[in-house]
């Protein structure tokens, strides 16, 4: 049973516009969430994270929003750039009570120049 879900397998956005990638989870014990970015033929690389004590974390063009009541998080990229084209994975764990990360199936983002 998949505890972290990314229901949009792909997303296309014009350069300069906002990209919004969504992630839903089912385990209410999750309290730490991460986004990873993956280029073809490479491993995922860490992008940004958020703890459940926050509802927003910002790092440059990347902002992650967490809605705990809805068990939903989103990654906003603004402005989007062609180099952002990659697969984005959402991941979660249970913090100090858990022992593994659970990953979504990824969303492939294409930023059109």
């Amino acid at each position, binding site marked *: 049973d998949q505890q972290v879900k990314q229901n949009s397998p792909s997303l296309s956005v014009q350069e300069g516009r906002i990209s919004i990638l969504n992630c839903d989870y089912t385990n209410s014990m999750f309290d730490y969430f991460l986004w990873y970015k993956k280029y073809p033929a490479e491993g995922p690389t860490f992008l940004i994270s958020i703890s459940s004590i926050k509802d927003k974390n910002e790092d440059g063009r990347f902002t992650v929003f967490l809605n705990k009541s809805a068990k939903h998080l989103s990654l906003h990229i603004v402005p989007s750039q062609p180099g952002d084209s990659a697969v984005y994975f959402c991941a979660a764990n249970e913090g100090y009570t858990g022992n593994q990360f659970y990953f979504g*199936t990824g969303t492939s983002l294409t930023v059109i120049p």
Partner: protein
Amino acid sequence: DTAVSQTPKYLVTQMGNDKSIKCEQNLGHDTMYWYKQDSKKFLKIMFSYNNKELIINETVPNRFSPKSPDKAHLNLHINSLELGDSAVYFCASSHRPAGASYNEQFFGPGTRLTVL
């Protein structure tokens, strides 16, 4: 200077063979992982080692055996390979076990295993 490296990058082999994938990290991390990414792109944990000790062993056939000779290495040996083993296998490492907050994983480039 590669942080997490895996060899080989590609592996094509026949059913029934035994093969190994090696992983090394030079980040000084205590915890290492093996993930399998299947055809549906689902990234699923297989094993996790902390300080050379096994801490996660998900429902994986016992044909898969991880070996950690030291903290910097976690190798994956697969016996009697089957068609369904074809996937991309990622090694990863982190400072602490996954249960600790503010603790991201660093991934290797992946090994694409194809079983014919």
